């Protein structure tokens, strides 16, 4: 595809409900990343995938958060029993290879999640 896409662009949900956020990476990019950005804050790393596997889940804030990637492409980030502190912009990025070695990441436009 032309770039990384994310859906939905905005999501408002009630506290306690589950939400699913979707990320479509650039075609051919093997690495995929999820970050969270709260208002006025920097990017907080959540999880990354190499292919379909997630070697580092240490950034997930709690066991209410989970993510999967299928077919080496689309990824979903699921937040169960949402809390107000989950409100943030969730950004997805992809890179040609694995990022810590020095691959630039291409970011999607983000999903703004508001938990009321």
């Amino acid at each position, binding site marked *: 595809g032309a770039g*990384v896409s994310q859906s939905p662009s905005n999501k408002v949900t009630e506290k306690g409900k589950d939400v699913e956020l979707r990320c479509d990476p650039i075609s051919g990019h093997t690495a995929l990343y999820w970050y969270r950005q709260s208002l006025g804050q920097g*990017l907080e*790393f959540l999880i990354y995938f190499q292919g379909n596997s997630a070697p580092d889940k240490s950034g997930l804030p709690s066991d209410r958060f989970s993510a999967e990637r299928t077919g080496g492409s689309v990824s979903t980030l699921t937040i169960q029993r949402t809390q107000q502190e989950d409100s943030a912009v969730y950004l997805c990025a992809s890179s040609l290879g694995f990022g810590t*070695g*020095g691959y630039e*990441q291409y970011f999607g436009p983000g999903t703004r999640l508001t938990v009321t």
Partner: protein
Amino acid sequence: EDKVVQSPLSLVVHEGDTVTLNCSYEVTNFRSLLWYKQEKKAPTFLFMLTSSGIEKKSGRLSSILDKKELFSILNITATQTGDSAVYLCAVKLTFGTGTRLQVTL
């Protein structure tokens, strides 16, 4: 724990000024440092630096890395209002909180 610290947190300058943004880091197994520009939502890539002392340049923007002192700077010369954004520095999967630059007329 990996750390990336950026300064200043915010900066307001007049069009035409030159600015220097700072990024210091403490990480294990350093490979590269990346700079991004974030205007509305998605950060966009500016530079990747892997070698000390070698300047990367793109138009009015340039950046250099000092691996001995563990920092990098991003310079913007002849600033324009379109340079207004948050500039993010990243090492491995750790991002700094960014420097918010506002360029006024």
